[in-house]
């Protein structure tokens, strides 16, 4: 659907705010990298910020928020379940670091 010039300018203002928020979140990730914390804490903090950043980008830059609610739910749930399914290997990864089982 075509938009008016006023709608276009209004949209640009909103996107500029979203862009600045994402830029600030990216800056926060760089700041976390210089914190004096363990790698595990750093990973958790960076992952949290990245998820918020990605969520804002998907909802507003990719306009998922303004799509049909059914489509939004389809994308979100489908992605979450498959991403969760990829996490089964982690337990083995931790086992290897502790040299359990056949690891020597």
């Amino acid at each position, binding site marked *: 659907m075509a938009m008016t010039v006023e709608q276009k300018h209004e949209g640009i203002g909103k996107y500029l705010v979203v862009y600045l928020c994402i830029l600030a979140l990216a800056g926060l990730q760089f700041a976390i*990298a210089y914190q004096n914390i363990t790698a595990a804490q750093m990973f958790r903090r960076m992952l949290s910020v990245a998820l918020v950043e990605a969520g804002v980008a998907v909802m507003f830059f990719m306009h998922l928020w303004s799509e049909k609610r059914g489509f939004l739910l389809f994308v979100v749930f489908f992605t979450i379940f498959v991403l969760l399914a990829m996490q089964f290997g982690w337990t083995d990864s931790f086992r290897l670091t502790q040299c359990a089982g056949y690891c020597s």
Partner: protein
Amino acid sequence: MSQADLTMQGHSAGMLTDRPFAIPTKKLAMWLFIIADTMTFAACLVAYGFLRNATPDWPRPFHSILNVAMMTFILLTSSLTMLLGVQSAKAGDKAGAFRWTMITALAGIAFAVLHIREWLGLIGEGMTLFKNPWGTGLFGAAFFSVTGLHITHVIAGVIALTIVGLRYKGGRYNADDIEIVGLYWHFVDLVWMFVVPFVYLLNLAH
């Protein structure tokens, strides 16, 4: 013709004419591609995380964040310019849409140049796919695989932006096509939001 046949025909016709989720078919196809590609990147990052966690002498070779910060700034800004292109296309501003789309493509080229410069620097320091001077050889394989997959997407995006922009200018494509290529570009940007912290920032030398 029986009542059952009529009902069946009506049902089939409805199934064929209704658009799933009331969005254009090409846009739905792009969303499905993005979901599938999310899985590809997620698998790569999970495999990278697994290797990093299970390897004791994982190297931390990055001394400066300047290059990666510049790359991040360029890519995030290119998402904004892409949005301006989509907005212009929807408002019927053909020249504006073409201009912003080409600016986005140029930002993509700048990102790729910085990325390749960084790769060459690391290769110059002795890093290859299988060995590096700092620790386990797995680091090179993981680093080049993840960042290589991403830069391939950036280069493909630059090509797509250029083709769609030119065809839009020539009247063969419309605002929907600009929006669809924009979706892809935002996705490439989104992936970078995960690559930066896990591949670069977690491997900063302190």
